[in-house]
């Protein structure tokens, strides 16, 4: 083969491999991200209450494009220690939970419309913990927990509480901070 043809072949091989490198880099990016929301929320793992990450009013926050009319709080969970129970008292303003993992994105979200008598409570568990909970359940007195299976062991919950007017900001922040994230003891 002539040198020129070999050069063209090498270029072609390079381009095809570049496609592979591109795909691999995109797929790997969430796994290796150091500055993503998960890494920033992870230090709050041991907290029993949600921690404010963006106070209403848009003060200092790492959250990109914060909405000044919404209080955002977060708590991290690790299902290794047992199912995680997220619970909030709901009031008039909008309140929502969304459940995220590092690499699998959002897996569940719920708003205060799903609250029962002013209580919104979700239990996150692994598929195995769900099986165990079902097996341990009393048939005559089934649990009323809303159970959600997480695709990954570790993740975080984002709590958003709206403050439709500036005067409600303090109240929204209090409501977001009052959300509890506790670990259910294994039976």
């Amino acid at each position, binding site marked *: 083969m002539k040198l020129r043809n*070999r*050069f063209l*072949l*090498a*270029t072609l*091989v*390079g*381009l*095809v*491999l*570049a*496609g*592979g*490198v*591109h795909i*691999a*880099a*995109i*797929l790997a*990016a*969430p796994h290796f*991200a150091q*500055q*993503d*929301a998960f890494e*920033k929320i992870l230090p709050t793992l041991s907290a029993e209450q949600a921690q404010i990450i963006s106070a209403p009013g*848009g003060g200092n926050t*790492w*959250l*990109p*494009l*914060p*909405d*000044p*009319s919404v209080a*955002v709080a*977060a708590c991290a969970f690790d299902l290794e220690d047992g199912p995680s129970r997220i619970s909030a008292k709901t009031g008039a*303003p*909008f309140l*929502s939970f*969304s*459940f*995220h993992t*590092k*690499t*699998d*994105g*959002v*897996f*569940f*979200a*719920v*708003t205060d*419309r799903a609250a029962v008598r002013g209580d919104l409570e979700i239990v996150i568990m692994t598929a195995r913990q769900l099986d165990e909970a079902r097996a341990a359940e009393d048939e005559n007195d089934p649990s009323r927990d809303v159970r959600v299976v997480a*695709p990954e062991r570790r993740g975080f919950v*984002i709590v*958003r509480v*709206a403050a*439709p*007017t500036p005067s409600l900001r303090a109240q929204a922040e209090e409501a977001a901070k009052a959300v509890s994230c506790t670990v259910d003891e294994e039976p």
Partner: protein
Amino acid sequence: MDHHAILTDSSARAPARATSIRPAAVSFRFNPTALLIVYAFLLALGLGLGSAYWVLKGDPPFGGLRLGPWETWPKLGSADADPYMRAIVAKRGQVPLATGEGLSLTAKTDNEGRRLESGCTYRIGSVTPPARLWTLTLYDGDGRLPASDLGRASFTSSEILRNQDDTFTITLARTLSAGNWLQLPPNGPFSVVLRLYDMPGAAGTNLVAGNFPVIERVGCGS
């Protein structure tokens, strides 16, 4: 040639190295195939990583929805998000609104497709799709909330002054205006984000451009 340069270099540094490495042991024969393989690998690495970096800097390339001046990625906050969306969310450190929570739409241009400039005056109105609460927020070119005389960079559906027929108009200008006024940053481009919280039905379905507010450029002055 490069290789001679390397050889010369290595022999020049030889005294600094451990005595067990003897430059005389390195023998070299010009081999175009080896050179081409190295070239192909370098090309693959450079182009692959470069293109990945370039894509991650921008908006997600697929799954976008354009409604007049507004742009949104309805799947960004769902389990169906594609790998580009996930990588971009991770890179930005963003927490997208989940599909069940609401929908966020960004405008960087006016209705005629001209970039939003803080030197101009704009009118936004007059309807939004049904939602329990919406917020409309200004961000400067760096994504920060602009400082303003009234300490206000956003309006919510509860705060806005409405006309008798329930429509509204928001004026974006650098100087004080009557009615719903948001002050633009002193200079540079800006963007507007409309967030619809708790939309009826699943967010991202049944969206028509006619239900969204229009961004109209009123004029540009000094």
